[in-house]
C-alpha cells in the first residue's frame, strides 16, 4: 500500500515537480493560479514542446538533433512567402521543408557515418542559408486576412481552449501512440539501449534512424508554422535561442541523454516545467539580474529530481 504510493511517486516525479512549482508560485501570487493564466502559460509552451517532441525521439535513440531551430525558422519563412501564392499549399510546403531537412540530416549521419551532433549542426547551417535566401534576409509579414483563412487552426480558440494547446495535445497523443504501439517506437527504445543487438537481429537500424530524424524535422517545421501563425509573419531568425531550451525540455522531463529511456509525455511535462519556472520568476518578481542564475540552478535541480537513473549504470 504505502510502497505502491512510493512507486507511483517515483514514476511521476516529473509531474509532481510541475505541480509543486505551480502551487508554490500560486501561493506567492494567486493571480498566477487562474484558469485563464494557466491556459496562457500552456499555450505559450506549445511551440517549445512541438520542437522538443521530435528531438525526444532522436535523443531516445541515443543521437541528437541540433538543426531544429533553423528548420523551424525556414518553415516560417516558406509559409510567409508562399501563403499568398499557394494558400493552404504553403503550409504543406513548409512542413515538407522540415521533412526534407530532417531526412537530409539523418541521411548524412547514416551514410557518411558522422555523429548526429555534427551532422545536424552542419545541416542546420545549410537550412539557415536556405531560410535567408527564401526570405530575402527580411522577416516576411503574413497578411491578417490570409492568416484568418488558413492559420486559424493554430491560433485563436476552440472549445474554450487556445488552439495551440489542441495542436500540442494532438501531437502529444499521436507521438505517444507511435512510441507505444508501433514497431518503430519499440525499435527506437531498442536502438537507444543496445544498437548492435538490434542490428544483429536483422533490423534496418538506419531506416529507423532516418524515420526518427525525419519526424524530428517535421515536428520542428510544424512548430515553425505555429510560431509564424502566432507572430503573423516568418523570419530566418524567428526560432533563434530555441535549440537549447528545447533540448532542456527533453532532459528535464527525465529522458536519458544516453538513449533508451524516455517518452513524449515526459517531454511535455519538461516543457511545462521550464515555462512555469520562467514565467514564475516574473510573477515572483526575481530581478532580471538574478533570473538567469536562478533558472540555471533550477534546471540542474529539476533534472536531479526527475531523471530515472534505475536503468542507466553510467551517467555521462
Amino acid at each position, binding site marked *: 500500500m504505502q510502497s505502491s504510493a512510493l512507486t507511483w511517486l517515483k514514476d511521476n516525479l516529473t509531474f509532481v515537480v510541475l505541480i509543486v512549482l505551480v502551487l508554490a508560485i500560486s501561493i506567492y501570487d494567486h493571480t498566477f493560479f487562474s484558469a485563464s493564466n494557466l491556459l496562457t502559460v500552456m499555450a505559450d509552451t506549445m511551440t517549445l514542446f512541438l520542437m522538443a517532441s521530435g528531438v525526444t525521439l532522436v535523443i531516445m535513440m541515443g543521437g541528437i538533433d541540433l538543426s531544429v531551430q533553423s528548420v523551424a525558422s525556414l518553415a516560417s519563412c516558406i509559409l510567409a512567402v508562399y501563403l499568398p501564392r499557394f494558400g493552404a499549399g504553403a503550409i504543406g510546403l513548409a512542413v515538407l521543408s522540415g521533412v526534407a531537412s530532417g531526412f537530409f540530416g539523418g541521411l548524412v549521419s547514416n551514410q557518411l557515418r558522422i555523429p548526429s551532433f555534427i551532422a545536424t549542426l552542419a545541416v542546420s547551417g545549410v537550412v539557415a542559408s536556405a531560410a535567408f535566401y527564401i526570405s530575402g534576409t527580411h522577416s516576411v509579414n503574413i497578411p491578417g486576412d490570409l492568416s484568418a483563412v488558413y492559420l486559424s487552426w493554430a491560433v485563436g480558440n476552440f472549445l474554450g481552449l487556445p488552439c495551440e494547446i489542441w495542436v500540442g495535445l494532438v501531437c502529444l497523443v499521436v507521438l505517444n501512440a507511435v512510441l507505444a504501439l508501433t514497431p518503430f517506437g519499440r525499435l527506437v527504445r531498442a536502438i537507444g539501449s543496445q544498437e548492435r543487438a538490434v542490428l544483429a537481429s536483422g533490423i534496418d537500424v538506419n531506416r529507423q534512424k532516418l524515420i526518427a530524424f525525419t519526424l524530428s524535422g517535421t515536428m520542428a517545421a510544424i512548430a515553425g508554422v505555429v510560431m509564424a501563425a502566432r507572430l503573423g*509573419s516568418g523570419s530566418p531568425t524567428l526560432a533563434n535561442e530555441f535549440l537549447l531550451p528545447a533540448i532542456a525540455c527533453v532532459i528535464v522531463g527525465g529522458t536519458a541523454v544516453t538513449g533508451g529511456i524516455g517518452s513524449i509525455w515526459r517531454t511535455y511535462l519538461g516543457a511545462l516545467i521550464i515555462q512555469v519556472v520562467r514565467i514564475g520568476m516574473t510573477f515572483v*518578481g*526575481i530581478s532580471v539580474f538574478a533570473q538567469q542564475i536562478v533558472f540555471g540552478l533550477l534546471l540542474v535541480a529539476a533534472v536531479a529530481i526527475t531523471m530515472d537513473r534505475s536503468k542507466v549504470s553510467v551517467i555521462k
Partner: protein
Amino acid sequence: MTKNNQPATDGVSRRLLIKGAMGVAGAAAFGMPFIKRSSAAETTWTLANSLRSVANPYHATFAKGGENFAKSIGAKYEVLITEGNSEKGISDIKALLQRTGGKLIVNVDPNDSPDARVIVEECKKAGAYVVTQWNKPADLHPWDFNPNYVAHMSFDGVPNAKKIAEVLFKGMGGAGGVVALGGILSNVPAIERKAGLDMAIKDSGGKVELLDFQPADWDEKKAFDITQAWITRFGDKVKGVFAANDGMGMGALEALRQNNLAGKVPVVGLDGIAEAVKAIEAGEFAGTVAWDPLWTGGMGLAIPYAVATGKLDIAKEGKEHREFYGTGIIVTKDSVADFKNNPSKIDFNDLFGKATGQIQYRG
C-alpha cells in the same frame, strides 16, 4: 538585435557595480533579496521595459532610462528580457499583463519585428499601454490600436548611416575602397544602415568602391576575424571600414591595431558607445552616430503614462507623434569634445521634444 556599449559615467557604473555584487550574493540565496512583494489587486500602474538582455550596455542604459522615469513618478518598475527568444519575450509580457490585471505600461524593443503585432494585440486586449522601439512590421500602426498602442519610436538608419558613411569617405580623402560590416541580415536597422551606406557610395559618383560586405551579426569577435581576412584579401586597397554598429567597429579597429593600420585606415560605426567616442578622440575612429537610450528608455514610458493618466489624448496627436524618429547625433573629431561636455538633458514633461519627424517606409 544586440547593440553594444553605451556611455555610462564612472560614478554610475561603480554604484551599479556594488549593486551587482549584492546581486550575486543574493542570487546565491536563490535571489530572495530581489523578490518584491506584489499584491493581487493592482491599483497603481506598473511600468516595464522589455529588451533583449541587460548584459549589453545599450539595453542596460535603455533599462536605466525606464527606471529613471519610474523613480520620478514613484511607480513600480520591471525589466523583462527576451534573451533573443521571441516566444519568451511575448509570454513574459503576457505574464506581466496577467499579474497586473492590465494596469501595465510597457516600453518594448521587440526581439524581431513580427513580435510587435502580437504584443500590441495582447496589450490592447488587456487594456494596457504600449510603446515599441526599432522593430515592427511596416503595416502595423499605432493609430489602428487607439489608445493602447501609443507610439512607435525609432532612429532612422538610412540617413544616419548615409551621413556617417560620408564622414568616413571624407576621412579617406573622398576616394578608395571600403569594406562594410553588417548586423544580423534580417534585422531592420541592419538593413536600413546598409541602405544608407549604399546611397552614400552611389552619391560618391564611383570615387568610393565597396570592396566587400560581410554580416558580423553585431558581434565584435566576428568583426575582428572578418577584418583580419579582409586585410589579407585586399591589403592596402582597404581605405576605410564601415561598421553597422560601434561594437563591430571596435572589433575591426582591434584587427587594424594588430596590423599597425589603426589611425591610417579610418573606421565609422553607429550607436555612440564610449569606446567609439574615445577612439574618435584618439583619431582611430572617424565618427559615430549617438542615439540616446536613456531618453528612449524613459520617454517610451513617459508618453504612454501621460496617456494612461489622461494628461494626453493620444488619438488626437498627429502621426508625426505616433511613429517618429529620435535624433541621432553625429559625433566626429570636431564635435566630440562638445558631445562629451554637454550630455543630453531629459525633461519627461517635454514628451515630443526630440521627435524628428514621422517614420518613412521605403520599399
